[in-house]
């Protein structure tokens, strides 16, 4: 039982990170039909902003704020202006290829300008162990879980309880109608990119103490979050959250109780099952398209 709780909490913490990243996938898709294959690298990069700020002498809390601010500018504003806006008019596929190229650029740039070696990253709280029903859980895992839940809850409240949030939802559901209603659609789309930048920066700061900061981190994270978003439903934020949690927990439990050798196959089996039985995802809605 203790082992099960240990695996469950660890899986929930990992799943919560996947959920944060997957939410970014769904937000960008809903508002601008952007599938961002550089999303994993977006999570990798802010950790290096933070480390660079610390190298210049900033304390961790200030470096984290600088990291989030830099992510807002580079991964939110500049990404939209330089990559998405010019490419979007040519359809989804050229944009997808552009984001793949961007992911390579980010990865290799970090390797060349910072280091190819993994870097230790300071934790949000001092590392200590908490005993829960016989299981040993690190405070880091609990903080990751707590901050991720709080972030998703804050996002949910913002989207549903504020005028800007509701305008963003309207833009996502029907941009033409939103424009007629006087909603500044372009500004709402920009907000979505900025929200995504904040989400990936938070995910980066949460996960880097565990994953270590390394230029290749985005490969695993991006793939896992993409699968999570499809499993949960690419057009629903709550679907992405569910998909992330399922993936994180399943990864740990399958490795411990089924086979560690085939742990990478289980998420893909679930993905295939979801695509076959419920193509819109577990919580997604069916989208009809005129052809």
């Amino acid at each position: 039982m203790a082992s099960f709780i240990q695996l469950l909490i660890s899986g929930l913490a990992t799943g919560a990170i996947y959920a944060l990243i997957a939410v970014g996938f769904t937000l960008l898709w809903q508002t601008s039909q952007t599938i961002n294959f550089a999303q994993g690298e977006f999570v990798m990069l802010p950790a290096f902003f933070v480390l660079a700020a610390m190298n210049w002498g900033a304390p961790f809390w200030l470096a984290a704020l600088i990291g989030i601010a830099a992510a807002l500018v580079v991964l939110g504003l500049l990404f939209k202006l330089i990559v998405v806006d010019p490419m979007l008019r040519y359809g989804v596929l050229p944009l997808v290829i552009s984001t793949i190229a961007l992911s390579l650029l980010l990865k290799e740039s970090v390797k060349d300008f910072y280091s190819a070696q993994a870097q230790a990253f300071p934790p949000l709280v001092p590392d200590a162990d908490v005993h829960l029903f016989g299981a040993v859980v690190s405070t880091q895992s609990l903080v990751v879980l707590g901050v991720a839940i709080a972030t998703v809850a804050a996002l949910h409240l913002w989207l549903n309880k504020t005028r800007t949030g509701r305008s963003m939802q309207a833009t996502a559901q029907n941009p033409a109608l939103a424009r007629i209603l006087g909603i500044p659609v372009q500004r709402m789309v920009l907000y979505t990119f900025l929200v995504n930048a904040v989400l990936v920066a938070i995910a980066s700061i949460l996960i880097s103490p565990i994953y270590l900061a390394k230029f290749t981190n985005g490969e695993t994270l991006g793939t896992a979050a993409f699968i999570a978003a499809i499993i949960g439903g690419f057009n629903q934020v709550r679907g992405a959250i569910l998909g992330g949690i399922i993936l994180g927990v399943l990864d740990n439990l399958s490795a411990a109780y089924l086979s560690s050798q085939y742990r990478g196959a289980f998420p893909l089996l679930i993905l295939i099952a979801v695509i076959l039985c419920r193509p819109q995802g577990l919580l997604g809605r069916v989208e009809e398209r005129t052809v």
Partner: protein
Amino acid sequence: MFRSGLFATLIGTAFGLTTPLHAQSSVYIPAVLELSGAGAVSGTNFRDGMLLAIDEINAKGGILGRKIDAPLLDTQSDAGISRAQVQKVLDNNPYVILGPVFSGSVLVDMALTQQAEIPEIVGGEAAAITQKNDPYVFRTSFGQQFSMPKIANYIRDGVKAKSVAVIWVNNDFGKGGRDTFVKEMAARNIKVVADVSTESGQADFSADVVKINAANADAIFVYLNEEESARFLREAKKQGVKAPLIGETTLLGQKVIDLAQGAAEGVRGHVGLTVDAPIPAVQDFAERFKKRYNYVCDHNGIKGYTAVYIIKHVTEKIGKFDSRLFAQTLHGITITPDDEPGVLMEVTFDANGDLDRQSFLGEVVNGKQKIVEILPKLGK
């Protein structure tokens, strides 16, 4: 027609017109390495060690009066790209090829170099590399069939374990090491009670540590890449693993110790190459490396450095740039630091391209790797 062609060739050869430019004033020794992708740490360490040696040799006039021309080609840590890069350099008639470091890449490249009869000096450690009767492949460090018996002896005689759990990374390096280790355990009647495979780049080791802890082994053998080793050690500490953790170079390196942030304390194992070796020539090399590159070199840096000096020594011994003769001469040779100081430690190559040299038993004490015993060459 024939006579005029022959005349033209003779005239051209006399004026050095028919040979490529690099063949006139330099010797072409390309390096195919993991400069990007997951293997970039290993590849760049190998590259930096190699370039240090090349600059030293070129500054003293090169090999047999010719400067070393060593262009770098990136495998992107992908076996398929590595094969394409090796094919590309073979088209330019290299003398010797350096790299790659990843065993998986070496295993797909070596058929090409064997066919072209060009020696390839590699960083890969998988046992299979030198078990294919390829007379053109040579190692720069121990193959697993040489290092695992040393670890197995230590687990039997030093730890006195009757059972062992093994955790390994599921790639050519990890699988080769795991298979050789399990065979060595069976030969010593030590039971393998847990056999856990992990993925390259894996971040969460909680499930793996739960499985290993449940096995209750007398010792745990860890055979992962460096960063994964650090993550595993942190998780093992968190879950209170009590059994001694034993490993190879990838578990005891300073980078792993730093990344594990205290969790590597007490870890023990066999180290084939290390800058912490109590050998003045190695420590002097480590100092020069750090001064030039501003980071501490790992074992791959030593591989790259010594590989170039091995080429220099053998070439000067045979007195000409003949790839086939180079390969024949390297088999069975022993090079001492007196013969060639750049090899750092005495090294002997066997008929398969495997090498034998001194190695070390290390332990992590106060955040540093401490060499506790020097193990002699297996052949002594």
